[in-house]
């Protein structure tokens, strides 16, 4: 909301308060009306003064140019060449002197035009950064001519004469303060902040009933009040310059005197108004009713709109003439030959207006104000103010009386007032009288233990709301700061510690943490070759996604990691290793919240292979104290997006392996990439994070190597399990150190060489005991797999 300082001065004598604009902005910000910015309108235009045309002579070298002699005061004259055709001697015009800055960065320099000296430029409103809509008296194509000699005289700043120079404070208004979307509201805040005694005219005067029109409110839930007045013999013309200047400073475009009055009152007091040409209200009856589904109306912007039954319209007996609170109809708008008008000052339901405005895709200054919820008591005051302006501007004859249809007037609200509770919540030591004074500044009267709230402050509902009013008048910055000595033992939960441990481990393993979106495209399922009937396709769907690419919540983390790997592959990044702890989402069976499961996802290409990614899982298993972290890998062939021959399931926790080459191709990754996925919720449940020292061995170990020749189909997993089984209680370590195939081995066989460690905890193991164990291992593997000792 913009507050032109000149408008503020109508109410608050700010010049005599000895306060700079910056201090003013700061004080307002600290009392709750945040000043976003102070705009110095017109400050980009410099060096333009008021001049008078003394002579007009033909240009000796150009038929279409003239040479003028301009008085700029103090007995000074300038010669200026121009092509304008609308000038006569004696005209007062804006003159840009040498060095002037005009709109769009135009700089004026003196020089010769076709051989004649020209010491500046005569300006149109466009060259001064404005439009003819804002200065309707300006000629269509020519120099602006002042209608009367500017008060400050020749040589004075033309921006002042044109009303272009304005300081405007732009406020951020919070949603709880619809009253502050008005000059009056802001003025009240300024007065309260600066402790200034205000006198604003009370426009709440009832008037006799007007018979000329009737108003029927069919839905008083959506329209709580409708006030109407009629003005006849209206002369449609531009509004005066001061009014236009204020509208422009607030970002509104001047239209004509009647429309400008409605906008001026809206800005000043916060109540949107509308003016209808009474010819559109044939039958002289206004009906406020719901639209019919599919009912059409062309709004005054010329667009045909289709309405629905939840929208409210202003109608005559046969058709709608406006969409209530949003925009008037084309057929009822004020035009040049309008002679009789009807002013509407009504109160519409904010929630309904917001909904209608959203569905229509039509947001106006009017709807924006209604949306926030207005005080219905404003409606009468504002129509009175509008009529006052009609008189002041002399733009028509007011038909005496008003229609005021207000079935259930809003009453003032009373709140419990307990100054001690208020002071305690704020944490200040302030007495009752001071608190009452703070509230009094805001128009809140205190009597006994009751506070009476004015109807324009319907945001104040409970005593804590009063506490905020007191606190901001007291000054948030003055509330003493208390640093409480905490008796809480804070900290992270076990789960958070485990997440930290996982992150630390992954970083140590050389993987960098990525950050992916939880939503993805349903097409990801196709890219991952997930069959149509696969339960992984059962995703939580977003009803209003940004686009199809973000239409579902991920059901597994593979698309996330492949997308990130693809980004890196596409950018020719080598050796990409990524991980993230992500959530995946599955719809709930019974209507509750979807199930969220945490997964570790790891992926990489370049310096990663199957055994590297498998090692990641083994290391994590070790970090989380799983029993036998290197055991429990089994071939896994059933994941559609994984290479069926190069994927292993890991315990019941997850899997690792190479991405299916077709899937990699779908993601345009032209190299083998590897992933590991671990259900972190399950891992946490199985984890043993308690660290306990086991005594170091006191007796020496015996190491024996064995190379077993077995069929190629026999896996290390099978062989090592059998060795472990047969090796007895002194076997402490099984370490595969070589696999050999080739010459001097029977074809279809391989040699697996293990280094086995034997040790007893309570004595030195004998060679005989080790040999005995080795014999058992040989026998067992021979029996199970036909293994033979490599010769």
């Amino acid at each position: 909301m913009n507050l032109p300082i000149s408008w503020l001065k109508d109410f608050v004598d700010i010049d005599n308060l000895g306060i700079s604009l910056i201090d003013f902005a700061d004080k307002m910000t600290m009392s709750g009306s945040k000043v976003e910015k102070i705009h110095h309108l017109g400050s980009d235009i410099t060096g333009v003064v008021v001049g008078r045309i003394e002579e007009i002579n033909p240009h000796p070298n150009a038929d279409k140019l003239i040479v003028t002699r301009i008085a700029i005061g103090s007995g000074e004259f300038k010669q200026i060449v121009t092509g304008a055709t609308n000038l006569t001697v004696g005209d007062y015009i804006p003159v840009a002197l040498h060095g002037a800055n005009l709109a769009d960065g135009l700089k004026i320099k003196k020089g010769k035009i076709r051989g004649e000296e020209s010491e500046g430029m005569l300006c149109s409103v466009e060259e001064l950064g404005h439009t003819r809509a804002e200065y309707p008296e300006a000629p269509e194509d020519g120099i602006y001519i002042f209608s009367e000699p500017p008060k400050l005289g020749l040589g004075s700043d033309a921006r002042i004469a044109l009303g272009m120079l304005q300081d405007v404070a732009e406020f951020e208004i919070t949603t709880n303060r619809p009253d502050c979307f008005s000059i009056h509201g802001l003025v009240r805040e300024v007065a309260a902040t600066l402790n200034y005694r205000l006198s604003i005219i009370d426009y709440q005067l009832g008037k006799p009933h007007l018979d000329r029109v009737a108003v029927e409110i069919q839905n008083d839930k959506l329209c709580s009040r409708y006030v109407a007045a009629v003005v006849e013999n209206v002369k449609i013309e531009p509004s005066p310059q001061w009014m236009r200047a204020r509208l422009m400073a607030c970002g509104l475009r001047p239209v004509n005197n009647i429309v400008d009055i409605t906008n001026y009152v809206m800005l000043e007091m916060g109540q949107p108004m509308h003016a209808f040409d009474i010819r559109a209200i044939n039958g002289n009856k206004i009906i406020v009713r719901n639209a019919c589904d599919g009912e059409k109306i062309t709004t005054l912007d010329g667009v045909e709109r289709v309405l629905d039954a939840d929208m409210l319209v202003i109608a005559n007996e046969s058709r709608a003439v406006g969409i209530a609170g949003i925009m008037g109809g084309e057929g009822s708008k004020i035009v040049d030959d309008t002679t009789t008008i009807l002013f509407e000052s009504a109160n519409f339901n904010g929630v309904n207006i917001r909904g209608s405005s959203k569905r229509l895709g039509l947001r106006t200054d009017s709807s924006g104000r209604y949306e926030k919820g207005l005080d219905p008591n404003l409606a009468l005051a504002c129509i009175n103010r509008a009529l006052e302006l009609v008189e002041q501007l002399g733009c028509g004859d007011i038909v005496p009386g008003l229609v005021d249809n207000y079935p259930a007037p809003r009453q003032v609200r009373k709140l419990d007032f307990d100054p001690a509770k208020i002071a305690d919540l704020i944490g200040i030591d302030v007495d009752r009288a001071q608190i009452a004074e703070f509230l009094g500044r805001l128009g809140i009267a205190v009597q006994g233990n009751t506070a009476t709230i004015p109807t324009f402050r319907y945001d104040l509902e409970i005593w804590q709301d009063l506490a905020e009013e007191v606190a901001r008048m007291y000054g948030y910055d003055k509330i003493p700061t208390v640093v409480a000595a905490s008796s809480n033992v804070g900290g992270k939960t076990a789960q958070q510690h485990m997440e930290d441990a996982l992150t630390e481990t992954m970083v140590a393993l050389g993987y960098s943490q990525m950050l992916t979106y939880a939503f993805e495209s349903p097409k990801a399922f196709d890219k991952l070759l997930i069959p149509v009937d696969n339960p992984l396709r059962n995703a939580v769907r977003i009803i209003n996604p940004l686009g199809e690419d973000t239409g579902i919540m991920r059901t597994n983390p593979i698309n996330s990691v492949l997308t990130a790997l693809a980004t890196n592959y596409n950018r020719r990044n080598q050796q990409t290793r990524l991980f993230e702890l992500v959530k995946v989402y599955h719809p709930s069976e019974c209507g509750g919240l979807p199930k969220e499961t945490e997964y570790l996802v790891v992926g990489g290409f370049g310096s990663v292979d199957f055994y590297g990614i498998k090692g990641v899982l083994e290391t994590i298993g070790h970090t989380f104290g799983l029993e036998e972290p290197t055991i429990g890998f089994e071939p896994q062939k059933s994941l559609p997006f994984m290479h069926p021959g190069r994927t292993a399931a890991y315990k019941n926790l997850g899997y690792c392996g190479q991405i299916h080459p077709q899937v990699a191709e779908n993601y345009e990754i032209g190299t083998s990439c590897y992933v590991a996925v671990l259900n972190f919720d399950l891992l946490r449940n199985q984890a043993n994070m308690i660290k306990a020292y086991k005594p170091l061995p006191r007796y020496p170990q015996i190491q024996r190597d064995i190379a077993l020749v077995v069929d190629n189909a026999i896996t290390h997993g099978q062989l090592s399990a059998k060795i472990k089984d047969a090796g007895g209680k002194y076997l402490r370590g099984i370490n595969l150190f070589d696999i050999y195939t080739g010459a001097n081995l029977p074809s279809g066989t391989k040699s697996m060489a293990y280094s086995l460690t034997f040790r007893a905890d309570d004595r030195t193991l004998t060679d005989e005991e080790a040999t005995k164990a080795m014999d058992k291992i040989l026998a067992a593997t021979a029996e199970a797999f036909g293994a033979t000792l490599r010769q």
Partner: protein
Amino acid sequence: MREKLLQIKDETLANLEKTTTLRDLDELRVAIFGKKGELTQILRGMGALSAEERPKMGEIANSIRQELETALEARKTTLAGAEMAAAMESEFIDVTLPGTRPILGTKHPMTMIIEELCNIFTGMGYEIATGPDIETDYHNFQALNIPAHHPARDEQDTFYVEGGHVLRTQTSPVQIRKMEEGQLPIAIVAPGKVFRSDDIDATHSPVFHQMEGLVVDRGIHMGHLKGALTVFAQTLFGEDVKTRFRPHHFAFTEPSAEMDISCFGCGGDAAKMPTCRLCKGEGWIELLGCGMVHPNVLKNCGINPDEYSGFAFGMGLERIAMQRYNIDDMRLLFDNDIRFLKQF
């Protein structure tokens, strides 16, 4: 015999000076102390001496032997040192060749900033709390005093999922979940992802991070709120940072405030402020929203607002991280380019 001993001593000491390698030295040692060594031979001949002569000669011989052994040992140390030095001289390597670096991973900058903030708050006695990404309308809105049709719902462009649930638009529902547990007093912070249907650009993302804070106890007032958040800001940004609390409006706090911190760019210096890009000439940077927990919110969670009060705060974390790590485009945080990630 005495003369002989002295002669051996003198000759040996002289020969010792001539040795240049450990091998020479060893030969010399054998020649004197070996089984057939000169000194050994003489000592063997002691038996032939008279009982009177023997102790005297023995004393001399022992003293000479000790002297020679000490000298040999000293020479050995010298020669060994020289030999090692020579060997090392020939073992030089090019120390300017690149080192062998293990691949180290990195934490995401958002993780780092969350850790930093969590450490500050846990140090102040706060617990870390979490909640689901997909929330009920009740927890995300209604319990926070944002009923249906409240304008605050429009401001937070909400993603809706099937079943009437939402992707949480704020971390505030964690407040509700914590209070519903019924354990008082409460002091938590809740970092996490939040979702809003904003198109992605340099300063917006449909997914971003917030951290929520909540303290509920008897007798909590606005002074406590100011104290806690000022300590937080000064720990995060340095002792010199100034805080400013100004009135604001949130549905779930009353009174409400926004906390600004003095701008890191210009420090609020009147001369630098007007051209400061960081604060756009304001001298302050908006850091977080906060306020006293609205009594309706306490009631919704079964807490009696006449007995307990509390404060809450919430802040966006991307902006803090971007300031901290000099990141000028939010998209980089979600792009997952390894060249970006490796910088942290």
